[in-house]
């Protein structure tokens, strides 16, 4: 590790010299570990799972993963500030249902209508995020409790709007969002790539990203260093809500219907992806690349088992094991990386 290297050069020049080594920090090690696990899993499935290593199946896994992964981008920012968002499942149902309600009466669904429906879903998600942010940031309610309340409340609202019935959408351009392709690539996968790019710019190329890591690392130090913490909390939950809203929109497009009673427990899949990806629930540590690999690892794991006709309960059991292993390995890496006198 870099901290133990003794250098007689001046700090400025040694900075340049050790930067390469520093890039291999503990978080990167985690990424390598995840990538290794993923490759290993792919190799095993390539041998034992029928039809696993086909272009069709691999793209299919990516498409299945995309909805969880999009919500996980937002969840990553929330967990980085040491928060949590339990309302994701309800928000996915709520935003997808709202978009479906807008489209359900139409006979013809054109590009404009689709864009409006997407906007509605994203704004609905952002609205739930704003509510979460206000309860947490202004009222000082712990994130766990606040989002537990919106989990219940938003679900109730979605059910109330539709009298608990699914809202169907006429087949057309909207379902293309969930099932269509551009070239060989499924549309949801392209949208996922876009959301990850936005998340990357936000966390790594914008000042607010630095502040997000700082608030999660030590909120009072961040505040004394001029970070406006309440504003930041609001921003992060709104951003996360918008990601969730978009995920909800894609989900309803895929199913050609809004499911006000669906996606119960979906937030746990999202949190699992983030945590397996190496983001610390204590805040301040984590990377978006890890979240992507985390979502993919869990997705691939399930996909292979499905192809082998294994009961889905096994998938749940294995996912549980993967979460524990990921955290334990991460802990070992971190201890080795930061032990100090």
């Amino acid at each position, binding site marked *: 590790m870099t901290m*133990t290297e003794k250098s007689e050069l001046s700090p400025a020049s040694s900075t340049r010299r050790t930067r390469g080594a520093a890039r291999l920090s503990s978080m990167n090690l985690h990424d390598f570990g995840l990538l290794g696990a993923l490759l290993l899993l792919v190799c095993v499935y390539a041998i034992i799972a029928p039809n696993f290593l086909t272009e069709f199946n691999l793209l299919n896994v990516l498409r299945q993963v995309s909805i969880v992964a999009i919500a996980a981008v937002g969840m990553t920012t929330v967990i980085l500030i040491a928060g949590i968002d339990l309302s994701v499942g309800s928000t996915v149902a709520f935003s997808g249902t709202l978009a479906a309600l807008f489209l359900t009466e139409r006979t013809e669904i054109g590009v404009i209508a689709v864009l409006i429906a997407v906007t509605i879903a994203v704004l609905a998600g952002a609205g739930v995020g704003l509510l979460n942010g206000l309860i947490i940031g202004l009222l000082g309610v712990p994130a766990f409790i606040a989002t537990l309340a919106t989990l219940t409340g938003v679900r109730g609202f979605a059910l109330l709007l539709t009298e608990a019935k699914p809202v169907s959408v006429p087949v057309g351009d909207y379902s293309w969002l969930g099932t269509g392709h551009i070239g060989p690539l499924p549309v949801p996968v392209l949208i996922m790539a876009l959301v990850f790019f936005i998340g990357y710019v936000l966390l790594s190329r914008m000042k607010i990203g630095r502040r997000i890591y700082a608030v999660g690392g030590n909120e009072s130090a961040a505040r004394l260093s001029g970070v406006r913490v309440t504003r930041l909390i609001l921003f992060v939950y709104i951003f996360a809500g918008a990601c969730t809203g978009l995920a909800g929109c894609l989900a309803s497009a895929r199913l050609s219907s809004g499911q006000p009673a669906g996606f119960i427990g979906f937030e746990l899949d999202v949190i699992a992806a983030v945590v397996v990806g190496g983001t610390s629930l204590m805040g301040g540590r984590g990377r978006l690349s890890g979240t992507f690999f985390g979502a993919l690892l869990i997705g691939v794991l399930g996909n292979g088992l499905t192809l082998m006709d294994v009961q889905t309960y096994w998938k749940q059991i294995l996912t549980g094991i993967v979460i524990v292993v990921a955290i334990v390995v991460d802990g070992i890496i971190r201890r080795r990386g930061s032990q100090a*006198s």
Partner: protein
Amino acid sequence: MSLDALLEGDIAGPMASPGTVILRGEGLSKAFGGNQAVDQVSFDLRAGEVHAFVGENGAGKSTLAKLIAGVLNSDEGTLEVDGSPVHFPGPHDAQAAGIAMVHQELSVVSSLSVAENVLFGVEPSRWGWMHRQKMSATARKYLDVVGLHVPPNLSTARLSTAQRQLLEIAHVLALNARIIILDEPTSSLATSDAHHLRELIGALREAGRTVVLVSHDFDEVLDVADRVTCLRDGQWVCTEPAETLDHDKLIRLVTGRDVLVAPREARVHTGEAPVLEVRELTGPGLVHADLVLHPGEILGIGGLVGSGRTELMRILAGDVRPTAGSMMLFGESFAPSAPSAALKRGVSLVPESRKEQGLILHATVLQNIELAALDSLGSGPFFRAGAARMLAAEYVEKLRIKVSSVHAPVNSLSGGNQQKVVLAKVLATQPRVLLLDEPTKGIDVGAKAEILTLMRGLAAQGISVVMVSSVLQELLDSCDRIVVMRGGRTVGDLENVDISEEDLARLAFAG
């Protein structure tokens, strides 16, 4: 409740007659990664002695203490207790052998009450249930002995850093150990509490206990220690009887050179247009404060812990809102709603607790230094990583922060270098008014001198400095003017000419 009466209970382990060697370490070594923190150190502890470990930060004192207390395990070497070799896999095993440690990083449990913390692990019980009443009574005895006068059922979260320190000492007394290791016990204590602690250490020695004192405070070491072991770069330098040592000798032993900050000539600034004017300020913990700060002036604030000095600093930094009174900065009204607003006006704070308020410990030197100056690093909402790295490298060089790279995590640095990182972060905002709350707390003489020298250099460049310190001599050596606080009020405003430590102490204590 006297100490003797309290200590008459059975202590863990057998009692040796004073002067006999009860613990011996041979060739102890401990490395973290490639960093040899303790290197082939041998020493012994005798019954009924106060044995001080001295050295700069990073010299290996704390690590050595942790090896004795079972907090860390040595890579090489042996420990003997009463002549037979021992191995302590964890602190619990050391406690069973009668060895307990008060840590530098405070380890009280905030969510428990004061009494529960004092008696943690040795709670009185009746039929397997905690005996609440007895607990309060027993805890109170230990609290009285250390001079912490708070109700035993108070939540620990409400204690100040200094009070937590006393609480930890009470806890170690309750464990009834015969070897008590104090790691920087007075670094966060005010003069009166520190004095009380010295008496307590003396009483422990009288009661036949062995006290290991890890300390940067040479006056304290010379005052209470019987023997002094000096470490440098993890290696043993010498073990000497305290009476053969003096202040200058200790500095030479510890640093290997003759460093000292010479007292600075105070300058009179009154008459110049003030930078900061505080009138009749009232707020949480602050009853009435008046303050005037001039350009390039170093203003000291003295007073006990709890006298309102930290509260005043927090209001000036925008961290807390005052309830009444006025503040003027460069002749304009100054009422910051948050630290961000104060920073924008050029007022920056180095907070009292660098670990809790100053630093993101697991983050890198770079991430810490760039944080407060983010607004200037890149255009609009976008961040320029290159500019941040240059800024960090510039301040690492300017403040001579000893670090292998700006990508090293700050928790791998010594206390002095950590404090320099906080300073670098604050200076990177190019403040016009610099607020320093206990800037030299818990750091070694070398780093202390560097920080004080740096502060003087900043004042010479025209930056106005307000500095809070519990060490009165430090104020006298560096400040142009000293304001003394007591009970939430500013009670004295003295030009630093012909005043003594006694003058300040009288103002700070007088009722």
